[in-house]
């Protein structure tokens, strides 16, 4: 714990701190380009120079370890002059193109130039020009602007773990590029756009679309996976212009996945902007009243046993609650929120949560993956495991299809029987887990969405219990969800009621004619063929699978268009904020259900959002506390029966196409095409 003086202020900083961190501790702001607290130290831009007594030259504060008795000055004429000199050098080859640069207004170089720049250039020579690079459909490059801080290089190799960006040549000829100009292939690649302190790497889909200062900022959360990454939605008028990460150390730190960042163009395509009713086999535009009337007519004198409801992957808790209570009032018990068929119970809560928490991964010292590809299902969970592996070299083993996760994985094989072998201690990895202080397992939907899913769940529980994963202050049992709606819906018990059918039962019933009406709340990931002749009500946002099959379409609001609640895979309750209005006639989802309930004569007892939320909290106490995690008590769960000798599958085949919003996005389509070309190449000639 060195103690040093910064501008006359004495500070004591943790061991291994740098002078820059000490200056920050003393409340002094140090300009920097290359330094980033989550990346390794490069010390190459020299912008962070400060004066240190007894040193003849200014020192790079980001690279100098803080030591006892140092006397640092950050505000002397020498410091000012040194920084001005550095900046002038940086500007020698930097183009004066701020007026046409997308970084304008949020550019570190621009800001520092305001503070340390000359008012005119002394350079009379030509500036160097650098060939543009190709980094794929997400990252636009203007490499002449690059100041070679190497943040992008360090991010790719350290955080993303896909070392595909590098520096070629040297000195005056130094350039940043991907290997042979290949598209960046990490699911986290877009973060280099935020990291780049200048306009060298900018967002391609956002290119020339808007100026940073003319956008309306809304702090919200992401629903395209089940992490609930904290995001900022930048909008202009009725249009979402871009999505950026917000800092949340417990979830996404300051990163977001490429899907979270770039799928927003899908919000503008194939939208359902008015109700439709199928007439004479064709979907025809209708008014809300007509749509509701059509539903009422179909439900008249119905048998509740012949009605079912399924909840999709993106639905908010308010609408799930409204749908559940509407169905209850109608006497319907054929309910399921697990549209993938995962055999998860709605209680105890610890059976379906990521109990360790995402930040908790940093305490783990052995990890067992079961039927999960965290890189696709939750890219930032994968980044956390990688972070932990980098820090402590923890063993990670996998039961499931072999994976490239950016860190070494011991492939135990894709054999479900291994679970039993680990639980009874006969498999060597059981010892690794037992010897670990904080062992954890991650159970993916690939292991649960199968006929014997409940038995797999029970086996996983036995693995957890027998290897010390359940201990005082530590719960290493984790279910990894990839659908944002799932945990909230399970919290609300959106599972078959007494005598009710689950997803498989509902689909079989619909196929056989036993189920006559199916309500799909944004459920698009089921085989619509199986719905047979049933009357399908689809409430959702996009003209995707569900809408195509529907007899009545009720247009809902996407996550950027409503104030709503989601619960992430850890069980963390978070609220998304409305950034723009839903298109056309589309409405917030709970309100649609409320209106429908009135038409059906079973009016739901809430008239505004606050009332819905009060009801949420009353029904499931978790909803009473926002942004917090209560450890879920451990209890027995899982089903009896044997685990079949069928290898686990993975729930996500195409990372870029996991929900209707992504499937409507042309940017995601481009990424998907590139990724599949890459896969083909990898399995083809380059094997």
């Amino acid at each position, binding site marked *: 714990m060195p103690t040093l003086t910064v501008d006359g202020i004495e500070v004591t900083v943790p061991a291994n701190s740098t002078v820059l961190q000490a200056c920050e501790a003393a409340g002094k702001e140090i300009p920097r380009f290359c330094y980033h607290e989550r990346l390794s130290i490069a010390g190459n831009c020299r912008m962070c120079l400060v004066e240190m007594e007894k040193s003849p030259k200014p020192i790079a504060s980001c690279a100098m370890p803080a030591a006892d008795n140092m006397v640092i000055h950050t505000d002397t004429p020498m410091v000012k002059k040194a920084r001005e000199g550095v900046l002038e050098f940086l500007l020698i080859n930097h183009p004066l193109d701020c007026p046409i640069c997308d970084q304008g207004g949020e550019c570190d170089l621009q800001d520092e130039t305001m503070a340390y720049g000359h008012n005119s250039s002394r350079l009379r020579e030509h500036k160097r020009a650098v*060939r543009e690079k190709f980094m794929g459909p997400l990252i636009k490059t203007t490499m002449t602007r690059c100041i070679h801080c190497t943040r992008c290089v360090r991010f790719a190799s350290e955080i993303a773990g896909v070392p595909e960006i*590098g*520096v*070629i*040549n*040297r000195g005056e000829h130094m350039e940043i590029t*991907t290997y*042979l100009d290949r598209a960046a292939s990490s699911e986290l690649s877009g973060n280099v756009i935020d990291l780049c302190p200048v306009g060298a790497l900018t967002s391609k889909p956002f290119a020339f679309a808007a100026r940073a200062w003319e956008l309306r900022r809304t702090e919200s959360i992401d629903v395209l996976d089940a992490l609930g990454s904290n995001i900022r939605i930048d909008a202009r008028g009725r249009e979402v212009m871009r999505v950026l990460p917000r800092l949340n150390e417990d979830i996404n730190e300051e990163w977001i996945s490429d899907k979270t960042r770039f799928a927003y163009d899908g919000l503008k395509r194939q939208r359902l902007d008015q109700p439709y009713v199928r007439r004479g086999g064709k979907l025809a535009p209708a008014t809300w009243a007509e749509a509701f009337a059509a539903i009422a007519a179909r439900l008249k004198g119905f048998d509740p046993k012949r009605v079912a409801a399924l909840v999709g992957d993106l639905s908010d808790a308010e609408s799930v609650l409204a749908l559940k209570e509407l169905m209850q009032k109608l006497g319907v018990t054929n309910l399921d929120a697990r549209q993938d068929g995962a055999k998860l119970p709605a209680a105890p809560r610890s059976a379906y949560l990521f109990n360790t928490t995402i930040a908790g991964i940093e305490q783990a010292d052995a990890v067992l993956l079961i039927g999960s590809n965290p890189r696709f299902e939750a890219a930032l969970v994968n980044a956390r495991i990688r972070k932990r592996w980098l820090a402590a070299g923890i063993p990670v083993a996998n039961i499931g299809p072999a994976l490239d996760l950016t860190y070494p994985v011991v492939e135990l094989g894709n054999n479900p029987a291994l679970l039993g072998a680990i639980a009874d201690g006969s498999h060597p990895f059981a010892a690794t887990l037992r010897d670990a202080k904080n062992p954890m397992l991650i159970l993916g939907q690939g292991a649960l969405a199968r006929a014997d899913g409940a038995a797999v769940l029970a086996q996983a529980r036995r693995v957890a219990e027998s290897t010390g994963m359940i201990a005082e202050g530590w719960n290493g049992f984790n279910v990894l969800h990839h659908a944002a709606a799932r945990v909230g819906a399970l919290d609300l018990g959106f599972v078959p009621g007494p005598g009710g059918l689950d997803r498989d039962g509902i689909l079989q019933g619909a196929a056989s004619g036993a189920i006559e009406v199916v309500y799909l709340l944004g459920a698009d990931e089921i085989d619509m063929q199986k719905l047979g002749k049933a009357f399908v009500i689809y409430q959702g946002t996009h003209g995707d699978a569900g809408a195509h099959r529907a007899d009545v379409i009720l247009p809902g609001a996407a996550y950027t268009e409503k104030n709503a609640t989601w619960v992430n895979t850890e069980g963390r309750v978070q609220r998304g904020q409305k950034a723009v209005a839903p298109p056309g006639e589309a409405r917030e989802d709970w309100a649609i259900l409320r209106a429908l309930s009135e038409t059906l004569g079973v009016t739901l007892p809430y008239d505004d959002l606050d009332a819905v939320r009060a009801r949420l909290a009353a029904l499931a106490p978790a909803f009473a506390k926002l942004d917090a995690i209560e450890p879920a008590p451990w209890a027995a769960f899982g089903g009896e029966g044997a685990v079949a000798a069928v290898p686990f599958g993975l729930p996500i085949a195409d990372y870029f196409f996991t929900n209707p919003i992504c499937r409507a996005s042309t940017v995601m389509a481009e990424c998907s095409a590139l990724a599949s070309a890459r896969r083909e190449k990898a399995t083809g000639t380059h094997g």
Partner: protein
Amino acid sequence: MTEATGSSSSAEAPFAFTAENLAKAKTIVARYPEGRQRSAVLPLLDLAQRQCGGWLPEPALRYVGDFLKMPHMAVMEVATFYTMFNLKPVGRHFVQVCTTTPCWLRGSDEVVSACKKHLGIGMNETTADGEFTLTEVECLGACVNAPMVQINDDYYEDLDGESMVRLLDALKRGETPKTGPQVERQTSAPVGGPTTLKSSDSSGG
């Protein structure tokens, strides 16, 4: 040298070390402690460059990367950083003329123009027959005998236009010209022989 290799991977023949080079590569790698095998990247790239006739095709970069389990991008960084690696084909005789200040003061301009004129090519070009590539390099550490050129692995020093042409002609004929100073000089001793300490029995002490 501002461009990395632009050739696409699929167009080029795959690369692999010959049995002899493979043995050498293994010896080199074994010099480094476990976990530090990447340190062998420079000697391995050199080995590959020699095997490929003086340059590194892109498949060779990938091969070396895979050999050392290091990212291809990192190998590319090394190969483009060091100017002694060529990422485009070079002639059989790779003529590197030093034009740094000491050589320049001692007449490297004349050497350069002699090469250009005699070979009929400009800087960074290769003769049509693929025999010579001409390039300009920074100080090669033989300033004492400036001006000088390096051709493949050999130094030729104390040059002027005329001796340069002679040298090129000899190479064209397939001869192996004498390396080192091209004037009356023994290594870096004074021209024409010693001027002091002529006899070993000097008694001045």
